């Protein structure tokens, strides 16, 4: 029994991790493929064509840039709103608190197809045209909840006595926020922004219903899937994956180094 729980559990755990990465490996390997036909589904022969010419397929880079733009705009707005809500939820007692919590939770528990289509129904009703603005509005809507949850965890870890001390020393509320609160909760805000950008950049369903004829990167992939996804898409996705992983691992190691230094300092 001991042996089983010691080694079997470890083997199963690493098998599950490996399973999570199988499709990633397929995407990366096929980015070096020269497909035999227009469907890049099976290995044919090695080629760097896609990597040398990332924008070599019409529409790929344009849709990629559109996704980055929507991601940046919606992340900034949603992170600010989410941070404000997180601070209010942790720091203040107010009427309607549980209703607020429920309204924050619901978008995370609603199928995207319903959020996407119901928002389209509203836009049609208001005669607001689908497209860039509509998709950005939609992304802000579904990112807010994730921003609140991420920042809230950080605000909860903030000792209110630090802010009280600043106030006792005659710091204005603005100065207290700028020099005490903000620096402490900043890692949470950065985390929320990274998560928000990732969610926005990869969103397909909600964008699909509200984009009209505009193409984001996922919408481009969806359209291409019917007639064969160009190899450039695999190369770009592999690049994004490696970049995102690098950012997270560097961030993590910086945090643990700081943690160790703090512990040694104490």
């Amino acid at each position: 029994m001991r042996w089983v729980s010691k080694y079997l559990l470890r083997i199963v755990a690493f098998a599950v991790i490996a399973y999570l990465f199988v499709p990633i490996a397929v995407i990366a390997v096929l980015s070096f493929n020269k497909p035999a036909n227009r469907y890049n589904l099976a290995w044919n022969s090695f080629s760097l064509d896609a990597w040398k010419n990332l924008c070599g397929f019409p529409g790929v880079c344009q849709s990629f840039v559109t996704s980055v733009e929507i991601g940046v705009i919606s992340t900034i707005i949603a992170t600010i709103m989410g941070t404000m809500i997180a601070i209010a939820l942790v720091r203040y007692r107010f009427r309607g608190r549980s209703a607020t919590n429920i309204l924050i939770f619901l978008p995370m528990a609603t199928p995207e197809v319903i959020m996407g289509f119901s928002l389209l129904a509203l836009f049609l009703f208001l005669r607001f045209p689908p497209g860039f603005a509509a998709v950005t509005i939609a992304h802000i809507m579904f990112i807010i909840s994730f921003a609140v949850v991420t920042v809230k965890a950080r605000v909860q870890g903030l000792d209110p006595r630090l802010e009280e001390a600043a106030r006792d020393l005659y710091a204005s509320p603005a100065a207290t926020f700028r020099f005490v609160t903000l620096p402490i909760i900043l890692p949470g805000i950065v985390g929320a922004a990274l998560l928000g950008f990732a969610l926005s950049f990869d969103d397909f369903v909600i964008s699909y219903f509200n984009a009209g004829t505009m193409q984001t990167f996922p919408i481009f992939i969806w359209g291409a899937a019917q007639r064969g996804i160009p190899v450039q898409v695999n190369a770009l996705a592999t690049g994004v994956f490696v970049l995102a992983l690098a950012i997270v691992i560097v961030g993590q190691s910086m945090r643990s180094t700081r943690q160790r230094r703090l512990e040694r300092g104490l």
Partner: protein
Amino acid sequence: MAPVAPIAAAPLIGGVRRRSGLAYLLLLPGMLWLAIFFVIPFGSLFATSLQDSPAGLFGNYAQAMSEYWGAYVRALAYAGISTLLALIIAYPLAYYIALRSGRWRSLLLVLVIAPSFASFLLRTYAWRTILADEGPVTSFFNALGVLPDQRILSTGLAVIAGLTYNFLPFMILPLYASLDRVDPRLIEASNDLYASGPKTFWKVTWPLSMPGVVAGTLLTFIPASGDFINAQLLGSPQTQMIGNAIQANFYKLRDYPMASSLSFILMATIVILVSLYIKRSGTEEIV
């Protein structure tokens, strides 16, 4: 990502009592945004679902149920099976990370989230390569003679495989969060009192991880039941789910009242199932 220790939150109680209009000011922009673009759309969705009704006020609903009954049942069945599979696959990993991983914990958590950095659509599409008819996976199962159609791709199996894979992190993370809160001393105590490994698991660990099981199964089942990407990319016209019916009525048929009725039926089903489930499992602290 690091869970906040309850001790760290304790001193807050003193600081929280302030009552202030400032709170409402902080809440206003975000809550207004959610009210206008999340809550009100359900109203316009409902209004749209009543338009162009063939017979009676709720004619679209009756038509939706008779026309897409198969897709509706399939969506619930596929999502249910995938959720169960995801729970079985995720639990050992979440348990390992929470209770056995030591200093590798944060790296393992990064590895759980990392696959999400690659496009959802491309990851789903990659399963076409993995489950291809001549591929190793299909050959293996065919050698065992267990595949009713001699293939996986374009069958319900491929759709279930895709759903299970895609929503797995939503199962792993809540399970991890609740297993992380289990005091290892309780497990040790059970072992010290001569409970067997399985007995300790079923009497101590599993009940304590229940909030994570409930949250994880909901966060897997809900998006899976509305998904149309997996059925579209991995399945066939015979494996369409309710999400595909909504998508087809939106994109191909341009029948918005029908798409709205289907969305409302899905939403109502989820609300009913979730509230029954939460009541049965006795955990109401998920929100």
